[in-house]
């Protein structure tokens, strides 16, 4: 646990306008709020497609934030990983009750950093991209441009399974944006997040057929949190947009009902 944070105190993150989408259950059953954190290039909309409503239907107040520079949040071309993690902690702390955080892709890494600054009730890391050299080597064509200031390229074929109709996949891919160059660099550098505060249970979810996150990478992240990943074979990286989106979210909510 890191107590001295002189740098963070001396240089607080600048406030920005943030997009937060929500879906609330008709009846408050006292279940914890669930905050979804999209990955690089993705906005809150990726969760608004299916998962937000579905989560609310199952009685959990559901929220999704767009990290700065993504979706309808304010532009932030110089954002750092710390600024993204700040966005997550800000939204989590604003919720009425202690929240569960669900981060996807590089958003899972952002979530892991946020967990060191906010004691989440539980966390779920979906298809986590924890960066480091492995990520770059596995996806050289995706990550090389990032090193030279371009975007991490995320073509539709890499993100979805073949089950998703091609025009839907193209439609989604067309809506993708990009994270800041600095944050991409930081992702590739892959600094290990500080340990979570408040000792939350952490679940890692992914697909062995994910073309961005290897099976080994998935297991490594899960092992770091003392468990094994929950796998959904046949699905693509963007689990929440794929045709079988219902299966992983139901499994996650079942897990939450048991553990949070």
């Amino acid at each position, binding site marked *: 646990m890191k107590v001295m944070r002189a740098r963070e105190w*001396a240089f607080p993150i600048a406030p920005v306008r943030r997009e937060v989408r929500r879906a609330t259950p008709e009846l408050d059953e006292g279940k914890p709020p669930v905050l979804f954190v999209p990955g690089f290039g993705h906005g809150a909309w990726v969760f608004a497609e299916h998962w937000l409503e579905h989560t609310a239907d199952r009685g959990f107040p559901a929220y999704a934030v767009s990290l700065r520079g993504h979706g309808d949040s304010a532009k932030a071309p110089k954002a750092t990983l710390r600024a993204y993690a700040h966005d997550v902690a800000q939204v989590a702390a604003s919720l*009425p009750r202690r929240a569960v955080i669900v981060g996807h892709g590089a958003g899972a890494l952002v979530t892991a950093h946020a967990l060191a*600054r*906010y004691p989440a009730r539980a966390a779920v890391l979906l298809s986590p991209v924890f960066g480091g050299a492995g990520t770059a080597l596995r996806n050289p064509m995706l990550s090389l441009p990032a090193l030279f200031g371009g975007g991490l390229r995320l073509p539709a074929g890499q993100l979805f399974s073949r089950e998703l109709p091609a025009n839907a996949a193209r439609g989604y891919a067309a809506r993708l944006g990009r994270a800041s160059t600095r944050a991409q660099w930081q992702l590739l550098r892959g600094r290990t997040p500080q340990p979570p505060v408040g*000792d939350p249970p952490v679940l890692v979810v992914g697909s062995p057929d994910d073309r961005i996150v290897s099976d080994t990478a998935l297991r490594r992240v899960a092992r770091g949190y003392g468990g094994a990943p929950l796998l959904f074979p046949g699905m693509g990286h963007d689990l929440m947009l794929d045709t079988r989106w219902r299966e992983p979210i139901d499994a996650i909510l079942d897990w939450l009902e048991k553990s949070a």
Partner: protein
Amino acid sequence: MTYSAGYGDPESGGPATAWRDGWPVYDRSGTVCVIGAGPSGLTAMKNLKEQGFGVDCYERDTSVGGAWNWRHDRSPVYASTHLISSKPFSQFPDFPMPDSWPDYPKHSQVLEYLEHYADHFDLKPHIWFGTEVVKVEPAEGERWDVTTRSTGGYGGERIHRYAAVVIANGHNWSPKRPEYEGLEDFKGEVIHAAQFKDAAQLRNKKVLVIGAGNTGCDIAVEAAQQAARCWHSTRRGYWYTPKYTLGRPADQVNDLMLWLKLPLRARQFLAHRTLKSTVGDLTRFGLPKPDHKIYETHTIVNSQLVYYLGHGAVSPVGDVARFHRNSVELKGGEVIEPDLVVLATGYHPSFDFIDGNLLGVDASGRPRLAMHAFPKRQPTLAVAGLLQPDSGLFPLVHWQMVAFARMLRVREAAPAKAVAVQRRLEAELDRRWTTAKVKDSTRHWFEISHTTYLKAIQRLLDELSLEGAK
């Protein structure tokens, strides 16, 4: 001994399992008792709960927030109070204040923040409002018997037995009142700053403010705008730090220097230079020259006092010699005629519900605690928030309570280790947690540097780590 988790209901604590002086004692087994639901009590509860302890909190008022709830009779906060520490230093380190709030939030926002914290972490079901702790006594097995009754003394007393106690009763509510010759015969009005709530109390009066802590300076600034006249009496010269320097909140600049690892002397030099180049030499307004370097008295953060001195709206005067029927005589012999005297002379700590010896309280009322929190030979007792930091209090008390909860856990899991840590803490009982040579004044009993203190906490937490011990 095992600690229980989950909600407790002290009212349905089952049948009495012990007796004390003929009264039944209800055993709350592994539950920890927290006295007070101000910021310190709230973070104590949150962190104990987080580490699996059951908690019962007693709060003599009817709501949370402590000092920051200005509806509370004993709140020292007045209508214009804003934080003096900027947001990064004023928030709990795991619960940020909203981005939409200003650098220096107002007291009502701090209260809102604390209420939100209590709801977010579901603390309110553990708090017994309108219930005062009147006695805390040791029981066998390093446990504690806590006697409570309704605030105001209605109804009977009840005794519960706890595994541990956190005293979070605050130290800014019991007024420190200086004695002056002739004060009883003075015909004007004399109040302590604790009774000052709103600038309207000063309107069109001739006001003398005594004391230049942050309270005295704030009130002098209010008087400059509202009163017919304002004298500000100080018994020494001070450094008045503005809220902003070099384009950012002053405390962030200070921590920038700390981050750059500048030693204290260099920081003092730079701070003196910065002040000199902005507000200049204050003796030109008739203020005494400071008898100390900056950081050697509790930091005053006030941009407006110097401004009003420069407008002649505040007249600086020296220490008070004595009171007469219609006037006040100053040490230089000058006589002034205020209608209202505000004693902004600070507050005393007060622990009237516990035997002072348990806290090492000396004749002057000063407790002797390791890291201002952990009493000697009482491993299941802690005092939360008894600090006067050069920054905000909330992060410090948060970490104190993370450490205390851990200490209780380690006592269970690795008793020998807990004893060793306790010994080490006791060996440093008289250490001061600041590198500056602070002036000898009762107001500096608990003066600390946040960096020195947090480094000590880091060391303590590392010692208490159970990794590898299990």
